[in-house]
């Protein structure tokens, strides 16, 4: 048995691991098999993370966070969590491999997943012109006319990035104002290749084997029109990833894991949550990191209140597993 298991390997998970490891809790961090490093692995320049005046590449930042966590004794496992039992004083975490780990405390830092448009043709044309990852797929749209759906920072970032390849990038947004930060908006407005289509939503995706266009619906007048496109990038936001804890932890009306006040304490003793999975509002790398720190400090405090015999059990088995 461990003292603590951290689920997730974004800024929240790794910051929690740095703090927990420095507190000598020998955390086990379950990083996921193909999404290790989290959302920043699919971004390019991160310009607003303090300490990097020249900016830093998302994957480089995550590698550094991981190295920092490992330096103090975090053990990282590249697997996915398939089930958890968070009730009772001893929590269990089951991995895709079938392996089960026990711990006295668990930090849930599972982040969020791309939101889909919810259209019938979206799945069918995914990978055939519909994409959620500009940095992965932009390359294949050289010289094409494409569109980004969304009005937030990630939509602006994707649209700006995609102008490196595409000849024209439409930004389709439901409203007539953007949610994106000023700097990202201005960058997009100043880009000759970007054209905004305001007050419009995607009502349908057209194309037999590949995206050929979209059906647009004006959100004010309801009038529908067709726009010819060679590709469609969806950046309409994210949903907190809570499927593992449904029925075990209380959620908020926003769908995030409910935590008490400014703490990371969930509805279950010994279970803490951090990062985008608790945050419907800010969702920044640095706020996720801060939230990870809070969760490790809360977990450390919780562990200090547990009976000595239980803690002894955790450290004994840890030592045993180290010597084995």
């Amino acid at each position, binding site marked *: 048995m461990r003292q603590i298991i951290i689920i997730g390997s974004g800024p929240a998970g790794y910051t929690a691991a740095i703090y927990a490891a420095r507190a000598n809790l020998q955390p086990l961090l379950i990083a996921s098999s193909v*999404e290790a490093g989290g959302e920043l692995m699919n971004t390019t320049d991160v310009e607003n993370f303090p300490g990097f005046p020249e900016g830093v590449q998302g994957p480089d930042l995550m590698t550094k966070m991981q190295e920092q966590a490992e330096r103090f004794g975090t053990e990282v496992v590249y697997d996915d969590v398939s089930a958890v039992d968070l009730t009772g004083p001893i929590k269990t975490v089951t991995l895709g491999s079938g392996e089960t780990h026990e711990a006295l405390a668990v930090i849930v830092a599972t982040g969020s997943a791309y939101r889909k448009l919810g259209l019938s043709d979206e799945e069918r044309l*995914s*990978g*055939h012109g519909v994409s959620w*990852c500009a940095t*992965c797929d932009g*390359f*294949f749209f050289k010289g094409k006319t494409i569109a980004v759906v969304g009005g937030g920072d990630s939509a602006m970032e994707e649209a700006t990035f995609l102008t490196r390849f595409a000849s024209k990038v439409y930004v389709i947004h439901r409203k007539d104002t953007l949610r994106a930060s000023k700097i990202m908006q201005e960058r997009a407005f100043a880009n000759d290749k970007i054209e905004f289509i305001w007050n419009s939503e995607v009502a349908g995706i057209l194309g037999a084997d590949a995206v050929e266009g979209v059906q647009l619906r004006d959100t004010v007048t309801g009038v529908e029109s067709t726009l010819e496109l060679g590709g469609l990038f969806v950046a309409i936001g994210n949903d907190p990833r809570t499927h593992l804890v449904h029925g075990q932890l209380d959620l908020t009306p926003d769908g995030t894991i409910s935590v008490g006040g400014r703490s990371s304490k969930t509805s279950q003793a010994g279970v803490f949550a951090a990062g985008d999975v608790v945050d419907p509002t800010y969702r920044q790398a640095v706020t996720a990191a801060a939230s990870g720190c809070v969760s490790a400090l809360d977990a450390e405090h919780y562990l200090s209140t547990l009976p000595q015999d239980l803690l002894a059990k955790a450290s004994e088995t840890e030592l045993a597993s180290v010597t084995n």
Partner: protein
Amino acid sequence: MTARAVTEATFDQEVINNEKTVLVDFWAEWCGPCRAVSPILDQIAHEHADKLDIVKLNVDDHPGLAAKYQITSIPAMKVFQKGEVVKTVIGAKPKPALEADLAAYLA
């Protein structure tokens, strides 16, 4: 066994004329999910070496083949039998999910 790299020059020999079933992993250096799925493909290649050949094609170096196979999203994994694409899997997936997608070619 680590998946071999194929090129424009070796594609016919390694993939099209290969007697075995071949999976081609279309990837690029700058694609995070590609790097994530790569070790999983290496494991599958190792565990099923008798059934399936797994090779990698760098789309940056060989855009002609990427265009020919209409790649618009990577990682894209295409299974070839007798020179024809019989299955396409798009996106990085955990090993069990990828094995399930490829089950027909691993048994």
